[in-house]
């Protein structure tokens, strides 16, 4: 038995974290220092060492808190894996030559139960051609360029997916003026511009928005004639599903339309939306209506309570939701209820969004109606 090098496996001290690594049919358990996970290369070496496969090229994956199998192939996603692992980090290792790339991605662990068995018995599976970069479905969308086929090439319509990420939207807008062609010739007209991108924010990380881009529309509504405050309010009101049409300050990176397949080129990372049609705007507005905001309603069981004793708080109810939603959790509850409340909220909202038709909980007792 390979006992881990550092620390005891069972230790649940704050600083250490349990790792359960699987290669083929073999499991290895060891612990890592959560605060100092080190570099990916070291970790890769460590895995090769504990599985005694020093010269085998492997692909490393882990299951995140949503139960998705996600790859670990650089320092960033390695650190992400370590920091989000709760309470233990599950690692899956595949030989590179018989790796199944489709196993990675959103909902993979829950969607296709057989994927795991494929991973576990790689020899059952056909060999696939090597693809060096990861597949689109490995990632959760954070933004997309849409409606390329119906917009002028100088404009860009960007959709930001705020849900499912804790990143701030991270941008600021300002007043400014732009030059327009009008019946009276060129005229200077007031406009709204992006004035700042917060480093690490969603807007910056997409690379689709830049400082000095002029904002033309917010969720299909033109901003011309509206004040900065109005546009701010419109954006915040739509912030959970924000679609802004901009005229990029830098016009050299515009999507060049190919004659035929504009529809597909218009969807760079879009996966969940219906394929673009000329009527896409109506479509996404509708889609937004459906998915955007489902208010949470908590119905109380109606047991008469002695007043003024406090009735069950939303905190507790949400905790219950949390547990229902995360069957993979082993019942461990973090000590801070406050944080739990936040994450629980986020999770439940996201859950609804991703499963708009999910009704199983609706009649399921008194807890929640979607």
């Amino acid at each position, binding site marked *: 038995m390979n006992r881990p090098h550092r620390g005891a496996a069972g230790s649940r001290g704050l600083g250490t974290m349990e790792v359960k690594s699987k290669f083929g049919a073999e499991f290895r358990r060891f612990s890592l220092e959560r605060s100092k996970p080190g570099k990916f290369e070291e970790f890769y070496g460590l895995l090769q060492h504990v599985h005694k496969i020093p010269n085998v090229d492997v692909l490393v994956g882990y299951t995140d808190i949503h139960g998705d199998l996600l790859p670990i192939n650089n320092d960033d996603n390695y650190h992400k894996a370590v920091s989000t692992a709760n309470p233990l980090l599950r690692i899956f290792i595949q030989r590179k030559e018989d790796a199944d790339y489709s196993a990675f991605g959103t909902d993979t662990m829950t969607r296709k139960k057989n994927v795991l068995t494929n991973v576990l018995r790689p020899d059952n599976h056909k060999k696939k051609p090597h693809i060096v970069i990861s597949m689109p479905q490995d990632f959760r969308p954070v933004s997309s360029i849409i409606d390329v086929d119906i917009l002028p090439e100088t404009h860009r319509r960007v959709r930001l997916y*705020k849900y499912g990420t804790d990143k*701030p*939207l*991270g*941008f*600021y*807008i*300002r*007043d*400014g003026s732009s030059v327009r062609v009008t019946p009276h010739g060129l005229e200077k007209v007031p406009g709204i511009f992006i*004035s*700042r991108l917060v480093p690490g924010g969603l807007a910056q990380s997409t690379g689709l928005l830049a400082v000095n881009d002029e904002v033309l529309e917010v*969720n299909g*509504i033109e*901003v011309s004639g*509206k*004040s*900065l*405050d*109005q*546009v*701010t*309010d*419109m*954006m*915040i*009101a*739509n*912030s*959970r599903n*924000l679609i802004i049409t901009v005229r990029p300050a830098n016009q050299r990176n515009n999507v060049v339309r190919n004659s035929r397949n504009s529809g597909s080129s218009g969807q760079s990372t879009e996966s969940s939306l219906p394929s673009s049609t000329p009527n896409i705007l109506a479509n996404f507005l509708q889609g937004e209506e459906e998915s*955007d*905001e*489902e*208010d*949470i*309603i*908590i*119905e*109380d069981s*109606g*047991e*008469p*309570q002695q*007043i*003024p004793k*406090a*009735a*069950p708080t*939303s905190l507790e*109810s949400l905790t219950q939701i949390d547990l229902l939603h995360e069957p993979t959790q082993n019942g461990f509850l973090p000590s801070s209820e*406050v944080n739990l409340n*936040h994450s629980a*909220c986020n999770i439940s*909202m996201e859950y609804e969004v991703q499963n708009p038709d999910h009704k199983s909980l609706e009649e399921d007792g008194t807890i929640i*109606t979607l």
Partner: protein
Amino acid sequence: CHHPQLPGHPPSTVEHGFPSQPSALAYDPWLRVMAIGTKAGAVKLYGAPGVELTGLHKETATVTQLHFLTGQGWLLSLLDDNSLHLWEIYQKEGCSHLEETRSFGLPARPGSGAAPLITRVTVILPMAPGTVACLGTEGGAVYFLALPSLVLLEDKTLLQDEILQSVPDDYRCGKALGPVECIQEHPQDAGRLLIGYSRGLVVLWDQSTRTVQHLFLGNQLESLAWEHSGKNIASSHSDGGYMVWAVGGSGQRTQQPITATVPYGPFPCKAISKILWRTCESGNPFIIFSGGMPRASYGDRHCVSVLQGQRLATLDFTSRTSCGTNPAVPGLGFPLPSSLFYFLFFIQQGFENPRALVVLVEEELVVIDLQTPGWPTIPAPYLAPLHSSAITCSYHISNVPLKLWERIVSAGEQQSPRLSSAAWPINGGKNLAQEPTQRGLLLTGHEDGTVRFWDASGVSLKPLYKLGTANIFQTDCEHNDSLNQAGEEEWPPFRKVGCFDPYSDDPRLGIQKIALCKYTAKMVVAGTAGQVLVMELNDDKSEHTVSVATVDLLQDREGFTWKGHDRLAPRNGPITFTPGFQPSVLVQCVPPAAVTAITLHSEWNLVAFGTSHGFGLFDYHRRNPVLARCTLHPNDSLAMEGPLSRVKSLKKSLRQSFRRIRKSRVSGKKRLNAGSPSSKVGAEANAQLAEQAGPPEVEMTPVQRRIEPRSADDSLSGVVRCLYFADTFLRDATHHGPTMWAGTNSGSVFAYALEVPSQEKFSERAVEAVLGKEIQLMHRAPVVAIAVLDGRGNPLPEPYEVSRDLAKAPDMQGSHSMLISSEEQFKVFTLPKVSAKTKFKLTAHEGCRVRKVALVSLASTGTEERVENCLACLTNLGDIHIFTVPALRPQVHYSCIRKEDISGIASCVFTKHGQGFYLISPSEFERFSLSARNVTEPLCCLEVSRLQDTSCLRWVRPRAPHPPWKHPVVSILASSKGAQESPGCIWFISPRSSEEVERNMRNASEDEMRPAGILIK
């Protein structure tokens, strides 16, 4: 197909209250109307209650003087840009309107070059019979202007040189005489003018012979007044004295007055800015003057002195302040000026015999009854000083039952027995507006803890009753009335008049929310220090102890320390209450943060209240708390800060007050510089002002706005924004029952099912509340309002409305739904199972946020039966949107309030029948109407009698014989025949364009209806 219409304006129907920043006053004794001009260039005419006309100068400039051409319906105004304007009262469709017809500017004197001040008009005197006006100027010259054509009569101009020729050296006050300070017409002989120059020389000038008849030399001159017979004049001076002179024949010179008095001497006094002298059949003449107070001890008081024989009253218009005036330490005792005099005049019977004295001060109008011993004030039926203490909230009740109305009126009458019973003297014109079909009550809550009840049924907003809440608490300032009591022995004999007193004793007393049940006369008033007072109307006075309860809204949440103000300490023991609303229970929230929402259900005897920390439910019958719920977010530290900014703002307001004193000392002089900042009355005027007063556009780094969704732990997310009671289906679809709803700043809604015992068992069983539902709006915007709609989609009626047969019973068969309005969207949910039915995302579509909403019923103009329930919504841009209910389809939208006018938007209240009020200045409510049926606007008629037919000004037409006119102007004409020299043909010179002539021809045909008089020469 449901596109909102293009934004229009809802008819702004009338302005209620006191015009902001008045600057001029005039009275027409024949029409019996007065005119008030404002710093914003507005002109407002007031006659009998309901008779109101309004005009606005095109220029945003202060109206410095107003003069009626008596009886003729013409009004001359002088602005501080030195332009003269002629206003005309004209008739259209049977109603009178006010319109500016022409304007005039004195040409710069040739050769005087770079001294525009020379022709600055200082004095205007329209001479009888109103065909000529004299203009005195800064340069000392007197010009004559033909009326109403405003044509300069150049040959009559009287330059100073001409006067100086007949003035001996010892009467010349240095090189020049100074500006013309005063011109008064001889009361018996209009051909003679008394002209007073600033440096002290007064001349009696005969116009026909162009000679100086009499010279007087006194001190630096402020004002002049004739005695009725024309034998004496009085002059007032900058040293605080006045002199009486005898007027003799021609060619006299006088350096010695008959009497010279400094009434408040012997120590140095301030100037007497205006003096009036009126004889009286019944005794000694009245001498009335403003100012003249001893400089050192009372230099900061604003007083008018009334002297009749040995009787002297010093009417003190200075407002009382937070700690009472402390005369021993002037300057530190805060005698802040509420008042600046702009004008005072008599209302007369005949030529003399003064009936009343009208004083317009900066913040109110005071009328003194001079015929009743003791000279009491006459209560005004309009121009109410709404802002006598700052308005902190307002509340409107429609269709007030007659019984309650009468009880409130009677409570109000018992409050002010000392006022004069004389009829309101300014009563000209006829009110043509329909009698209001229902009684409307507007309640205003004030910073000093008072609630004022106003009759808002018609055009003029009449005060009915004033309720004070300060006496329930221990406050520091109970020795406040020392000012009045010390009066007997004091010299001068001050008498406090007026009620403007904006400086609150204790900001915690401020009223935040009001709710009144018009069927049971139960009222709830809640304030800044978390106090909730349950009151009931009692027709008799009473002495009782108010029971006190506290409700802890933090509910054992740990880690919070309230850093704001203390709660108000209730007074111990029984307190005496005058007839009116008397408190029975005081509930105090802990922590004592300002109450942000209340609601009352008089049938269930429940009151719900909320603060920034949570909400509570109180049974005022059993006097015990039913429920307390904390809504505070664990990370919210700001909610515990308390209104610190308020303390700062109090300091700031004090500082500003001092600045104002200083400023008023400078600008209190009669003439304001052209460049002085001016402001506006009326919504339109305010807008102009905002543009004008704004700093010049400076290149600045552009403002940025952060785009981030609201998060759960935004500060102040726990503020309770609305509370609502409804009898509806909360738990299941078969049993309805009492429910309570609460909405917060973070988009949470809490619904409680209430167990309310039946009426008979109220005393035995306690009310219980059980949490039924919690709704978290995903967009987290503050919940502004909650309402339940019955099976037909109509809002549920108020308590007792059905049992008193005043509303149809709600449909309890069909399924109910719930309308939630957040700052961003409206949503209708089904009940009892909460799921969204319809919604309208206002902010996402329009970029505006909801500020106020109300369910209003709009009746069709055709039949009263056809009533539609709509949702009216005022946004942060000042627009009003109307939506159908429950379909939430946008119907119309209007732009109503300027979006910069934040306090205007915050002050808006809707009435149930589609009207609304908002403050356009601290002292004025603008009333608007969304309903075509329900409009309150002034419709009135003033019968004018013109010396010249108006039409001859506009269009030359053959003169038809007109009915003979007879009115007091005849007598003036008779007594001033000598003045009839002005060439009559001038008015026939029409300098107008052909287009205008055409328009006038059209007008002229309408003019046939006018009862205009004509002077046939």
